[in-house]
């Protein structure tokens, strides 16, 4: 069971206080967009084995959404960061690089690096 630190209230709590919200940094496609874009937005997810950017909500705590960079294989948490960004912050990316030198960044919301 994971331990997560909510960047909004500073609390480090166990997974049962939180709710997972799936892949992060999705771009919304609304009316006027193509079927392909809309499908990708609603249904297509990377589901990587390894580094994953995801959304979590501190459901039983401050109620705020935030982002987590996590390894889906080892469950290592590279960092948590605020919800109000469309791409992971530099320090999170740097942390991942230091821990996973071979990782090829496919940064959500920011294309390939």
């Amino acid at each position: 069971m994971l331990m997560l630190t909510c960047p909004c209230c500073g609390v480090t709590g166990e997974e049962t206080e939180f709710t997972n919200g799936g892949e992060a940094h999705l771009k919304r496609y609304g009316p006027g967009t193509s079927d392909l874009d809309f499908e990708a937005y609603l249904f297509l997810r990377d589901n990587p084995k390894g580094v994953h950017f995801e959304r979590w909500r501190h459901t039983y705590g401050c109620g705020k959404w935030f982002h987590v960079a996590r390894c889906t294989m080892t469950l290592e948490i590279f960092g948590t960061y605020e919800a109000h960004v469309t791409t992971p912050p530099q320090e999170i990316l740097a942390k991942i690089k230091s821990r996973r030198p071979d990782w090829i960044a496919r940064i959500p919301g920011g294309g390939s690096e």
Partner: protein
Amino acid sequence: MSNRLTTGGRLLDRARQMTFSFNGVRMKGYAGDTLASALLANDQMLVGRSFKYHRPRGIVASGAEEPNALMNMGSAARFEPNQRATTTVLFEGLKAESQNHWPSLEYDVGAINSALSKFLPAGFYYKMFIHPRPLWKHVYEPFIRQSAGLGKAPQQPDADTYEHFYAFCDVLIVGGGVAGLQAAHVAGKAGAKVLLLEQAAHWGGRAPVDGGELDGASPQAFVDRMVAELSGMPNVTMRLHCMGAGVYDHGYVLGYEQLDQAVRGAPRHRLWRIRAAEVITATGAIERPLSFAGNDVPGVMLASAVRDYLINYGVCSADRTVVVTNNDDAYRTAIALKNAGLSVPAIIDARVLPGDSALMAEAKEMGIRVLMGQAVAKVLGSKRVRGIEVCAQAGEGAVLEQIRCECVAMSGGWSPVVHLWSHCGGKLVWNKDYALFQPDLENPPTGADGLPFVTAVGCAAGPITGTDFEGLSLFDTLRGAVEATISVCERQGIRLRDMPKVPTVVEYDEEPLHPIWLMPQGAGPKLRQKTWLDYQNDVKVSDVQLAAQEGFESVEHAKRYTTLGMATDQGKLSNINGLAVLAKALKEDIPQVGTTTFRPPYTPISMGAIGGEARGEVFQPIRRTPMHGWHEKNGAEWEPVGHWRRPYAFRQNGENTHDAVMREVRNTRANVGLLDASTLGKLIVRGPDAGKFLDMMYTNMMSTLKPGKCRYGLMCSENGFLMDDGVVARISDDTWLCHTTTGGAERIHQHMEEWLQTEWWDWRVYVANVTEQYAQIAVVGPKAREVLQRLGGMDVSNEALGFMEWADGTLGGFECRVYRISFSGELSYEIAVRAGQGQAFWDALMQVGADLGIMPYGTEALHIMRAEKGFIMIGDETDGTVIPQDLGLHWAISKKKDDFIGKRGQERSHMTDPDRWQLVGLATLDGSVLPDGAYAVGSGTNANGQRVTQGRVTSTYHSPTLGCGIAMGLVHKGPDRMGEVLSFPGTDGAIYKAKIVSPVFYDPDGAKQNV
């Protein structure tokens, strides 16, 4: 007959005798005994029957690894099966019964299975019970049910209580033997917050039994000193009777504590939910049996267990004990027995060594006969060992001699307890020199920071190879514990003030073991069929060999095919031996075959402990409205809606539920009814961008709603599907109040917050959930207005408060907000008052409306009245695949808006398909009630050969207003097919015929609600 020696037994309190019973026979033991030691003291070696062949089985071990001595314990509401006698502390009045025997332990009919054992090989169940099928029901199943299974299931609810406890520490140490104590001492002195768990009733583990000298004193003195010093450290917590059950991600560990229940009502078990920055496993090692024919006959025991019973409990397992071994350690048992004045006719040592080791020399000096290079060909006896036949280990079992004895003490070497290391991903390596799996330091379990968080110390770590030190020696154990704990502290940034010292140790040098996986090495089929690997599940060497022969090459497959290691002991004794046999059969090395997965818990834990406090009243939260107590006192039959309890109907004067519902509908339509609507969600949405935001949330336009007005709104998911509905009231220029469904308050609140926080975080909107601030009461029916007028305080006339309007005011002195909305088609007011005044307001309404026939009604009457009006219900007409357009709710979907949640989804071709099923009313031709969920059939079959369907029933009731069945349903092109008759086959075999009609059955013009 007593097997208790007059002296000895370091854990016994001989001053406190205790009486207990086994299979109804009264026996005596002492405080400090385990049930197993007390049974042995009473010469009760036979303790159970095996799972498959019902073979007689005796106590084998002295700890958690025991496979045989499983008991039904206690009675009635405190009955519990499968309790290990070896870990059950004896108490006065304990009642135990052996398991899996019929009619009695001594004479078991099922033992005939044993004679038939060649017909019950590995995979027997898979092979035999497939064909012929009729035999399954009449022969196989009754046979298996009678003979299989270990303990009985309890017949009564558990009378005890259980609890959880959340604990946090820097260093958690599992295991209170000398290694664990030493590790705790180092970490404790360094100032770490330490939690030390020991599953047994005593500190010190094996060391006080096995001897040696620590810091110039006995191991017991060392243990006593450690415990005393640790007890004085405020940063160290020590718990006995508390097993480290499982290690999970991010330093999560479960501890399973057995409590003494000194006070009535105190909990029985406590499940510790621990978060540790570092976990040290000091879980020791478990001795392995040897594989020889008849190694399951009662009286064949682990050498260490024989020693434990002797030294810890003053119990001699037999007068004459033969020791069989492939290592030096078992000589300690022979020496201890001899020292206690008991007979050791021989030590059978399968090894051939160039010279005598120190322990061997001592045994010989005491006059014990040592037979090198020899083996047990066969154990004599069935319910009890009578002797052994000796042969050469190198041969095929030609008998050299017979030796009379009543106990065989066997040792096949030791396996580190690597379970807790492995639970969370720690890998193992095979140590060839010591023939064991040990933690692979290169591949430890890693935590949230990606760094290792589990460290094995002592015997659990296995021998530290590549050093001058002896593996599994006392010195190595302590040195490893000190060094590993220093690293743990350093990793946690805990500074050691003084460098801890490793105690000086005096102990025997030991010669290494020789791996012996089968005795004798060339044992033929006859012997192999009597050579047990897994005692509890009756798996023999021949079974594993057969599995390999039949192609089960993966250890995980072979395990499941043979059931090796799948019993309640999870193969603590059998796994390594089984693996070695499998490897040999596959002609591979043991590490290539690998181990099966170690899964928590280490030993079974009670269901009660897992459930913790969540039983009875607090099994699940029940949400109560402010009028809950009144409903309860007034005949409410409850309907769970989420965690809420809502009255389904209020039964009066012995009427049945159906009659109550009919009465409630009729009374509401004729007079006036009261509904507790407090559970409906109420969300305040405020801010300069609130209108824009609500236009996105709802399919219809909320920004144009005038203050003082209400509007029914629909909310869809991004997929386009309808997810909630409710009435929205505009409170002021920048404030709206949104009602949600009963189950929807939290969900819709979160839905709004999610969009505000993660998509439109620059929009200036705040949302607050004020659902529970108010008690909300619907006053419904033609006399509703009169009731309110009698209370007085505000103008509730149609002119002052028209349909779909709201107003603040007072009624009968209660500050309130009144919404003129209707879910029944009647004149209706929903009135919100402060929750704390809800009951008083309800009472006031009941009082002033008494002579008008005011009565409460429940959710079923609510449902019927809304169905009579053709109003949809989320969860009935919707199921997550229905869009508002399917329900004829086009009028509530704004065409002017560029966007709203779900708009894009509803534009997809499948959603605009004219072939979608759409909402209609359904009227049965004979007035009966359509079965709920029934499908309307079409002609022909589909590609799967199933009957074509063309619609289904979503809501169906008997309408007391119309005096017939009414229903709604989704039907293929339904609205275009008015008057057509559909057929609905029921599960009762009948075909129900219903005509497609308008879903509005009652007052289609809305004249009644708009008065």
